[in-house]
């Protein structure tokens, strides 16, 4: 077991290297895709910037504060999408019967599915988020402490893990219900759209749902509130953002259980 876990990173690396080489076969197309993937994700931010040509604050957040929320939401989803996003193709693989090949190879099926068609161009989203993050940090008037700096850095990792776990949960659900790839989009891309805005504007029920049910509020909202020194909604303590690594750990456990249950349930199409 321990040996399997230790081997996983190098196996995963080998797999993605293979896919990267294949995408480099058409270099012009790769560059076009990388650039347009950056531009495409910039659109979300352009929408916010366009809004701020009409207003000066959105739900109590200034443009620079919104930029920080946007950058952290986009970066964490981008990193999760880069490393685990391809897993949503599992339903298609099960339907066409090609999933069987993953079960007989000497590499865990999870790694092969997560690396399936690894698209390096997806690095466009975290890259543009990084640019927005740097711009936001320069414009923000934050009283930086060590705790706040660590919180921001840690939340980027924990947030990526939370989104990654949601990708895996969505994929695991496809063992039960093929063809439901788009369902996961409402939690991943929907989650990202939600978390790039101050969650309190969506009302108390939504805040409760994204805190206690699908905990995407821990991806960036609570950590950013802590960094900006803003109070948390629902009378929650202001340090609640510190819990985001714990939430990430719970999500990993859930995702891993769901994936195993899915694998156990798998019966080949047998055609």
């Amino acid at each position, binding site marked *: 077991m321990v040996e399997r876990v230790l081997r996983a990173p190098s196996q995963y690396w080998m797999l993605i290297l293979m896919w990267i080489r294949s995408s480099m076969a*058409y270099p*012009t*197309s*790769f*560059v*076009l*895709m990388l650039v*347009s*993937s950056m*531009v*495409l994700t910039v*659109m*979300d931010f*352009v*929408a916010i910037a*366009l*809004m701020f*040509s*009409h*207003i000066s*604050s*959105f*739900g109590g957040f200034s443009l620079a504060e919104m930029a920080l929320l946007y950058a952290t939401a986009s970066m964490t989803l981008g990193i999760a999408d880069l490393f685990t996003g391809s897993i949503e193709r599992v339903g298609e693989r099960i339907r066409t019967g090609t999933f069987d090949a993953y079960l007989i190879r000497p590499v865990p099926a999870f790694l092969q599915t997560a690396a399936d068609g690894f698209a390096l161009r997806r690095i466009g989203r975290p890259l543009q988020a990084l640019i927005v993050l740097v711009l936001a940090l320069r414009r923000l008037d934050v009283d930086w402490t060590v705790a706040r700096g660590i919180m921001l850095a840690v939340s980027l990792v924990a947030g990526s893990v939370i989104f990654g776990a949601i990708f895996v949960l969505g994929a695991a659900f496809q063992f039960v*219900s*093929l*063809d*439901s*790839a*788009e*369902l996961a*989009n*409402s939690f991943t891309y*929907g989650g990202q*759209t*939600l978390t790039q*805005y101050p969650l309190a*504007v*969506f*009302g108390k029920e*939504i805040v409760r749902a994204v805190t206690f049910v699908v905990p995407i509020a821990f991806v960036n909202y609570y950590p950013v509130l802590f960094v900006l020194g803003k109070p948390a909604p629902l009378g929650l303590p202001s340090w609640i953002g510190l819990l985001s690594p714990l939430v990430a750990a719970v999500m990993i456990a859930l995702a891993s259980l769901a994936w195993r249950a899915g694998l156990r349930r798998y019966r080949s199409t047998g055609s």
Partner: protein
Amino acid sequence: MGVYWAIAVRSFRRFSTYRIATVSGAFTNTVFGFILCGIYLTLWHERPGLGGYDVSDALTFVWLQQGLLMPVGIWGATTTGELGERVRSGEIAVDLYRPTHLLLWWLSVDLGRAAFQLLVRGGAPLLVGALVFDLKFPSTPLAWLAVAAGVFLAILVSFGIRYLVALSGFWITDTRGTEQLALVLSTFFSGMVLPLVVFPGWIGEFARATPWAATMQVPIDIWLGRNPGGTGSALMFQLGWIVVLLLAAQLMTSVATRKVVIQGG
């Protein structure tokens, strides 16, 4: 003519078999509808009457946008994906052998698809939205007729764009780059990011003149009765882009057909 009708009917049936995919897609559209309503409610609360829309217009915009997204195929649908793939793999040669017109063949496929998605993926989110929020609906039969025409023309405009993107594969080996670029342009200029009426200054005027405006913003404004020049000129605007796009598509088809070299046998 009969053959194209048959293609459209089969395309309709084909999409109706993906039941779970359709339901999960409609669910996702609905979730996004609620998210966008939260954002727009805040925005229109801060700036009432923004872009000439009142709150009810803005919320109606959200649900129509989510409902039209798939039927209109803003993010690419069969035509871009499958036709592009056939151009890439060379299977297009088989299509050209057929005694049917390439453009009309794919148009029939697309209309069958759009009809199915309009019913299910357009209807479901709109119904949910109308139950929760106070939305606007056209009031006269004539207005409904104008909406139907606007949506049909929107699908044609979108098809024209997607057909051109797919055929670009005849000149560049891999169309995925062009597809991505088309995705960027259509997301921004159709009103998916924000209603185009909110775009300020020259960028707003430019956006509202593009063919992408004719795929989403214009039909929604027909529904809302908010087109600056009235519904008639809105329909003419769509029609104008259709003529341009289909002429370009026809020209590209004939040039591309002459370019095809069938290997082996």
